[in-house]
């Protein structure tokens, strides 16, 4: 098993975990955490794709590093917005439980 398969496998596991969290958890905060885990998995896969073998050692392409830095910033913005919406939902319903607020058909 080479380094690409190892890291790409890890990123797929993270993505599946995140999807599981979004699909099965009933708590808004946990759904936001699920989104964040998917973001981590995708970022890890970008880094994996940027790994190059140079002079016998592994180096990560600068493009991949730049992309992941920007993508982490975007992920943080999304998480902040999602949590602020979760706070507003909490103010309306007094709960984070998604089953209590399904007035919209999900």
């Amino acid at each position: 098993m080479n380094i690409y398969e190892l890291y790409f496998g890890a990123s797929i596991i993270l993505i599946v975990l995140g999807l599981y969290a979004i699909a099965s958890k009933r708590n808004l905060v946990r759904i936001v955490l699920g989104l964040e885990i998917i973001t981590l998995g995708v970022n890890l896969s970008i880094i994996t794709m940027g790994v190059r073998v140079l002079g016998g050692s592994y180096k990560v392409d600068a493009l991949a590093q730049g992309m992941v830095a920007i993508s982490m910033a975007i992920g943080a913005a999304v998480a902040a917005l999602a949590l602020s919406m979760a706070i507003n939902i909490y103010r309306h319903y007094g709960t984070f439980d998604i089953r209590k607020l399904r007035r919209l058909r999900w």
Partner: protein
Amino acid sequence: MNPFTPLFLLLGGSLASLLADQLLERVGAARWRGCLAACILAAALMLFTWEAYLGVSVAEFRLIGPESPLTASLKLDYLSLYISIIFCGLGLAACIYSIKYLELESETGVDRYYLLLLTLIAGLVGVTLADDFFTLYVFWELMALSSYSLVAFRKWSWEAVEAGFKYLVMSTMGSLAVLLGIAVLYGIAGSLRFDILAQSIPSGGPAALLALALIIVGFGVTAAAVPFHSWLPDAHPAAPTPISAILSGIVIKAGAYAMLWSLFKLFTPTVYGFGVVLIAFGILTMSFANIVVVMQGDIKRFLAYSSIANMGYIITGMGIAAYILRSYPSMVGAAALALTGALLHILNHALGKGLSFLCAGCYILRQGSREISELEGIGAEMPATTASFGIGLLNLAGVPPLSGFWSKFFIVSAGLGIPSDGLLLTTTLIFILNSVLAAGYYLWLLQRIAFKRRGEADPAAGEAPALMLAPVIALAAACILITITISPVLEFIRAVLGVLLG
């Protein structure tokens, strides 16, 4: 002049509007804050139109060195110009409409509204101008983040925050699917520039197929293709009306544009047979939405579902073109016809649906209800609004002299161009059935709003305020103008096709 000035103007303008807000607040002219945003949008629209009038040669802008794979690059061609003009035009109409609307609805947090509106339009324009996948992703997220905030803008209402949260979760998952697809493409090509990607994708093997699937699904969420559509009917009614018009008119078009661009330019349809997939998505989308739309009692939900159906038409048009290009490589003319229909329908639906949402907003403001049963007959008391509403709905229904007819006609005639092909024939028949059904329910809605008799005359009812009526009438005039000047528009679309088909 730098051809990207409008984009920088929009980005800079959104920052400037933050500062200008404080100033306007201090001098007590807070109600004029929308005018600044409207001026910036109008300037961007005029600059883009001017460029279209002069005729662009392809212009490029690179942030880091011309030959490095590490560039952040922008590129202006006819396709991005065409889409950008639509985005800025509808954005301007919605912005002018917002000025009076927000005042009448006594919304809170208006100081953030125009900032978000400008970043939304800047993100949309940036998506069309991006020339490498990562730039596209950054602008995509700029657009998505501002539209999540705008959907949840009425944070005092349970409906808006719930719809906003749902939209955020679904759309972020779509964006992440796209980002994973981008990662795979980066693994194949070692670069994200579109020109380098277009060369290396055809030899990409199964990894490229994975990326293709991820990209179709990811952009499909924003384009509201049917298994991924469920954010849309909640988000549109919950948002303030001008934002519904923008979401329905142009944000979902950004999904269609990104699909069109990445599929036709990067994954050339002659190499990958994604035409069938697009046709399947398109048929599912339009048939499902057209059936569900009839059951809606809420006028904004009604219009939202009909937006999904119209996205179905556009996706089907794209699918027919891709299918013809792959199966009948000699019939480029028929494929071009289907793409012309899809591109023209992007314009028609943006105008028509933007117009109907803005008119519906006027009715809702007067009546204080979104139920169609309570809005019945209100049209008779607001003749100018109703006339515009009628033009918008007839354009969407595809009644012959209006340009909405031509876009559907082009897609249908491309589908019937190869009568021996069973798949194309079935698709076209389903398309025609859907169009007829859609025309039926648009006319039914118009009849209920405009011609139904009201029991008692409402003393409070009357024409909408002038500042809200102006963009409505301008959009209606634009519908008619495009119908009259259809041949220069088609000429322009032919130039756009040159970009897509080479």
